[in-house]
């Protein structure tokens, strides 16, 4: 009923999976992963296999404060009465369903509420659609959501398929293990099973480190596997791993940041006006203290400076 579980055995399977994962992620060509000898090389490959670009400076420059101009996509959203946002519902601190009040909350969700406030003057006018990592690009492309706020890294490959806002969060891939694990980094997990979600770009990095990628639907599914000793580690963005560690105090983050993961809000290529609008909203958040307040609330202190906005040309 759910996504099939992959239980690969052996290195050949790992390579096969790496290829499959890379193809699914669309982040890298199969050859690049299969032959990549180290995580650094894989990381480099990830950014070179797609047409070269600067993921951090690829968005559309806003023209001043956010405004709902007539005939714009924002006007369409306003006429509909609510913003449709594709979000995560199982990633603690970024997008998760709080069982206590049954609301979806988190840092990503705060970004969405800010956009809704800029359109409607009411941050609550949002319909959240919980989607899995694997559906993010598809849902943006087919227009079933206006915007995706889903711990989504801006990559050159994804930029071919969707537009992104400016960077609103800086993350990097690390590794989460149980507290009694002796592994020091992803490199020491060679040949062991490491979990990530289907459609995440973390899978390719895991495969490149010669660990066996195990893919599941949600990040919490990875924590279930880790708690049941079905996988040796979980590897993805530290932002997500922090949220998993908060749910299980008997885990720890290990090793250095393996990659640079700038998060952006994904929007259809058909609505550049909306991309500029969202960038204007993000710019307000960076300067009026709301970004800092959200960071402090969800991720904690000390709060770094917000990632600076960079735009294409």
């Amino acid at each position: 009923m759910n996504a099939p579980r992959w239980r690969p055995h052996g290195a050949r399977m790992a390579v096969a999976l790496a290829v499959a994962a890379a193809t699914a992620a669309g982040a890298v060509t199969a050859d690049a992963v299969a032959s990549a000898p180290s995580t650094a090389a894989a990381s480099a490959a990830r950014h070179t296999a797609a047409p070269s670009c600067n993921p951090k400076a690829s968005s559309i420059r806003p023209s001043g404060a956010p405004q709902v101009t007539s005939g714009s996509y924002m006007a369409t959203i306003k006429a509909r009465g609510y913003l449709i946002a594709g979000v995560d519902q199982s990633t603690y601190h970024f997008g998760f369903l709080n069982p206590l009040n049954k609301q979806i909350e988190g840092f990503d969700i705060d970004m969405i509420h800010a956009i809704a406030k800029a359109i409607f003057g009411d941050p609550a006018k949002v319909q959240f659609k919980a989607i899995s990592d694997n559906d993010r690009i598809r849902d943006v492309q087919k227009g079933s959501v206006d915007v995706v706020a889903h711990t989504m890294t801006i990559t050159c490959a994804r930029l071919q398929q969707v537009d992104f806002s400016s960077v609103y969060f800086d993350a990097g891939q690390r590794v989460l293990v149980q507290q009694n694990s002796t592994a020091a980094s992803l490199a020491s997990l060679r040949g062991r099973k490491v979990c990530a979600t289907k459609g995440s770009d973390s899978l390719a990095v895991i495969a490149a480190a010669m660990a066996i990628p195990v893919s599941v639907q949600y990040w919490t599914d990875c924590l279930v596997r880790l708690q049941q000793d079905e996988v040796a580690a979980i590897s993805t963005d530290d932002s997500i791993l922090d949220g998993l560690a908060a749910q299980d105090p008997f885990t720890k983050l290990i090793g250095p940041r393996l990659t640079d993961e700038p998060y952006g809000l994904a929007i259809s290529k058909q609505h550049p006006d909306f991309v500029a609008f969202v960038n204007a909203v993000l710019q307000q958040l960076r300067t009026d203290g709301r970004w800092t307040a959200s960071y402090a609330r969800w991720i904690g202190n000390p709060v770094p400076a917000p990632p600076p906005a960079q735009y294409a040309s």
Partner: protein
Amino acid sequence: MSATAALAREAIRGGERRTPDALRGLLVVLVVLSLAWGAVAALTAEQHASAAADVVAVSEPLSLDAEQIYQSLSAAEATAANAFLAGGLDPAAARQRYQADLSAAAMRIEAASAMVGTGAARTEADLTRLSADLPRYAGEVETARADNRLGLPLGAAYLREASELLSGQMLPAASDIYANEEAQLTSASAQATGLPLMVIAILIGLAIGYVLLRTSRWLARHTHRMLNPGLVVALAAVVVSLVWLVSAFVFGRGDLLHAQRYGSGPAQAFARADVAALQAHADESLTLIDNTGDDNYQGDFAHQQQLLGSGTGTLLSAVAVPAVAADAQAWFKAHAALRAQDNGGDHQGAVNSALSGESATRFAALSSALGSGITAHQAVFASSARSGRDAFTGLEIGMIVASLAMVASCVWGLTRRLAEYR
């Protein structure tokens, strides 16, 4: 004259010499035939009786158990998902139902394990898997509940895991047992109602009756006595036992066929529909928990709805009760409204409908209609199958006694005639 008289005497004497030999030969033939009759009739009676007893005592309870394992597991999943949907404070009633469903499943698995005979290796393996998976499933549901109580999103992941275990491994094992036992039931039933051995027995019975009649007439001609009481008794015994055998078969067969046609057949149709409905109900809750709109679970709901359906060849058309089909349609309508509500952004409204609103009420109506249908038809099956089995009671012993009585009376009757020649 004297020569003629001498010839006649000679003829009589010769006849007299031949008559005892013929009598002895006849006696042997009659004894052998009587014993053969006893053996075949008793074997036939034993086979039919044991097949009928098998239907009542082993196959029926086992397939009943298998079906109820499936039902209670599906119900447990639906209830667990439903309780989870309510949030950290799951309703006490839902929790109690979940516990009841789970212990019902455990009890049935145990009962089925105790009953399953040798030679049912596949059923045994399925039961072992179920016994091993049940505590794992319960553990995952409890972990989900504990995490949910702490407000952790991890809870939903454990519930997904549990649901995957249940629908990926446990339900297939339960349905495998059910399929096996249904096949067993059908073959036991076919054996109990089958004709070949019975036809042979009846032919032998008729043959021996014919031989007895011919013997009586031959004796009447040669000994100038109208009736040989031994042969009369033997003839009576063969007639009585033949009538008994045939009528037991006719009544037993009728009852067993009735049990199948109006009992286990419809009960099976109801059970299949019930299982599909339970599965769809769990999907409804899981879709809301996953909150991913028209995802896998909703896809499965649509699949189950199609299976239940309303057209020909669907599960509900097999049930063939218009009221039940109407209940199902009402629930599908409520579910469609719930999905529209959820897709329109009113998630809480959809959750309320699933927990205690229109959808919950409609499903409860459908579920209870299907449940009482199963119970009613199982009662029909049980009583008819039992009376079918009872039709064969004492038949085997009766056949043996009849054949021994036939042997005894033939010996008694013919030795009295033989004695007259000494």
